[in-house]
């Protein structure tokens, strides 16, 4: 049995920023949702169900926030589902939303993901002692720093590969008016001289803390064909999970990520991702994750991801053949629960030809990627300008 065709027909985002003083959490998600409806030239009555995602409830301190957000998202009398799969949640939420349509159960749904980090304390929420586990008190950076060190040791990558990514993604972000960090004049030296947060991760090699929301309208084939603007056809969807720790686990190049990529490529008919895809929006919260994921996702052989980065293959400004994170990525904007959905939405913008100054010319096929937990939860989709 084949899944029904589905496509993104509307995308809405907020301007990512440190603090949105002017709106409540409800106001934030509604702004993204209204933007997506306007983009699709639809109204609330056209939506059959709403699927919402965000990172842990402890961030903002609202338990099961769909309860509170029902009114802001026009859900009175409609189905509403809340997804939570750690940092990958924005991507997973888009996939669960797509499954509402791909299963033939719904014709058109709205999906929204958000985080209002200014009203939360992510570092605290990620570090609360678990009753039955060793207390790391490390936050995300402290958790991933040793894994990055191991990548550097294994691959022999030059020490400035991470610095290069930090500069490249900020230059991309300077093309995207929605990006939180706007650093058009950033230099390698500036990144190198920024203070060390979690060795080897410098301040400017880490993602910011952002407020923001992202929304998409996903419709079935018939409705998508009538959509006023070009649809982004969903060509493949995949999720994978593995435990945080187990004997022999490769934390640098997790099998769950490799399996997830293999699955989504198979569905989209991709045999060589670097050649077949036109661009990718990949969850890179710390600079070194670009070379690591280049390998994990099959864009480069193991141990050679950094070469693509250093050669400028992933850079729009250097005319690279496979731009990664043309929007500026997580390194420019990080409303945690939304970050995965932003990747998925930005991939869709590229194939709709709607990405403004960060458009990859002629993009027809793009990858959206998200990961979470201890690099153990993965969600991916491939979207195309054609049905396939």
């Amino acid at each position, binding site marked *: *049995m*084949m*899944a029904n065709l589905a496509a993104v027909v509307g995308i809405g985002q907020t301007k990512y920023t440190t603090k949105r003083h002017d709106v*409540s*959490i409800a106001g934030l998600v509604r702004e993204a949702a209204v933007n997506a409806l306007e983009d699709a030239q639809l109204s609330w009555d056209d939506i059959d169900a709403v699927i919402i995602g965000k990172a*842990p*409830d*402890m961030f*903002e*301190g*609202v*338990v*099961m926030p*769909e*309860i*509170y*957000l*029902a*009114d802001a998202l026009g*859900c*009175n*009398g*409609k*189905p*509403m*589902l*809340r*997804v*939570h799969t*750690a940092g990958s949640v924005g991507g997973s939420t888009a996939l669960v939303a797509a*499954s*509402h349509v*791909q*299963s*033939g*159960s719904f014709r058109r749904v709205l999906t929204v993901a958000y985080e209002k980090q200014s009203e939360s304390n992510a570092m605290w*929420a*990620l570090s*609360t*002692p*678990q*009753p*039955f*586990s060793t207390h790391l008190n490390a936050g995300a950076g402290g958790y991933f720093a040793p894994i990055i060190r191991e990548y550097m040791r294994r691959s022999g990558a030059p020490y400035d590969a991470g610095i290069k990514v930090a500069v490249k993604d900020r230059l991309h972000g300077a093309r995207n008016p929605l990006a939180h960090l706007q650093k058009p004049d950033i230099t390698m030296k500036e990144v190198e001289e920024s203070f060390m947060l979690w060795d080897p991760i410098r301040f400017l090699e880490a993602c910011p803390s952002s407020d923001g929301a992202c929304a998409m309208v996903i419709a079935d084939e018939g409705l998508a064909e009538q959509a006023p603007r070009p649809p982004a056809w969903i060509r493949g*969807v995949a*999720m*994978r*999970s*593995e*435990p*945080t720790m*187990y004997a022999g*686990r490769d934390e640098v190049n*997790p*099998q*769950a990520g490799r*399996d997830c990529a293999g699955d989504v490529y198979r569905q989209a008919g991709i045999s060589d991702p670097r050649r077949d895809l036109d661009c990718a929006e990949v969850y890179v919260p710390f600079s070194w994750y670009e070379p690591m994921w280049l390998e994990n996702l099959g864009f480069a052989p193991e141990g050679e991801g950094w070469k693509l980065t250093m050669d400028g293959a992933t850079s729009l400004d250097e005319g690279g053949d496979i731009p990664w994170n043309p929007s500026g990525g997580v390194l420019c904007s990080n409303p945690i629960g939304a970050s995965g959905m932003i990747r998925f939405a930005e991939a869709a913008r590229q194939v709709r030809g709607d990405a403004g100054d960060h458009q990859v010319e002629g993009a027809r096929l793009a990858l959206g990627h998200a990961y979470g*937990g201890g690099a*153990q*939860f993965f969600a991916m989709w491939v979207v195309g300008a054609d049905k396939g």
Partner: protein
Amino acid sequence: MTDIAIVAYHQSKAVSDVGACNEVELIMPVLTEVYRQLGIANAQDVDFVCSGSCDYLQGAAFAFVAGVDALGAVPPIRESHVEMDAAWALYESMLKIRMGHAESALIYGFGKSSPGELPIVLSQQLDPYYLAPLWLDSISLAAMQARILLDAGRISERDMAEVVSRSRRNALANPNAQLAGDISADDVLAEETYVSPLRRADCAPVSDGASAMIICTVEKAREWGVPYALITGIDHRMETHNLGMRDLTDSRSTRLAAEGAGVGAGKVDVAELYAPFSHQELILIRALGLGDETSVNPSGGVLAGNLMMASGLSRIGEVFNRIIAGEAERGIAHATSGPCLQHNLVTVVEKA
């Protein structure tokens, strides 16, 4: 829509405090039992896994991540999670099967409510700016709803007491029940009020535990060669969060979900309703249009034991058990979330 088969189900005993038992220890026994029912080894033998849990019950972000340790997820598996009752994890799993990306799915829900003060924890579900700072606990809100029903003459305190009495008596036959006993409505009415007009017995107890279910296509059920029941309808609907804008004496979202699930298309032999307060069972019975031919909450329902994040899935499982036992041919299960029945899910389960 393709019918989906339920092939295995198990719930742990509901207990008031499991002590030092962690997430994995809560989940493993119910998973082991559903695997045993099918003769499979672990989550590798199903195509998709989806769970329901709530971080705030355990008091730790990502409490569900520990759940993955119970699955044998090496090599990696297709897995997802809802921060909702596992009845909604079932809903997500059905979409996955219907889109052709899975033939079978394992669903589990778990809750350890004992470490916190559940009614206070649930107050943080409310609007964070206007309501949550008032710490309006779930029992006080339900008491207000019961008071509106009583004042409107829709129900009497004796009606509520009879719900409790029936729950306790039915629970005598349920080995997983936390509260059971041969208690009459008069016995309940003799209790003092707790949060007026509610008595303690009108409120579901705080419980720890888990439940698990395996669903699949009809073809896969035949291949496994086990007795199965069919999910022939499922729907869920949300209502406004603004309690002042809702008719609290009714459940409009339950009516809509029942219509969507096709409840009215046949006789309902059994109904398992997620009513954490006695008066809410009365609201639901009316919203679902149930009459004397329907046996309501033969398990005792959640007044006999309320596994947060699993009770909704357990209601579906209880109906499945009745059908497999030959006690019913068609039943409905209900799940709820939010204050005063804000979000409701209705499932129709039928004999294969």
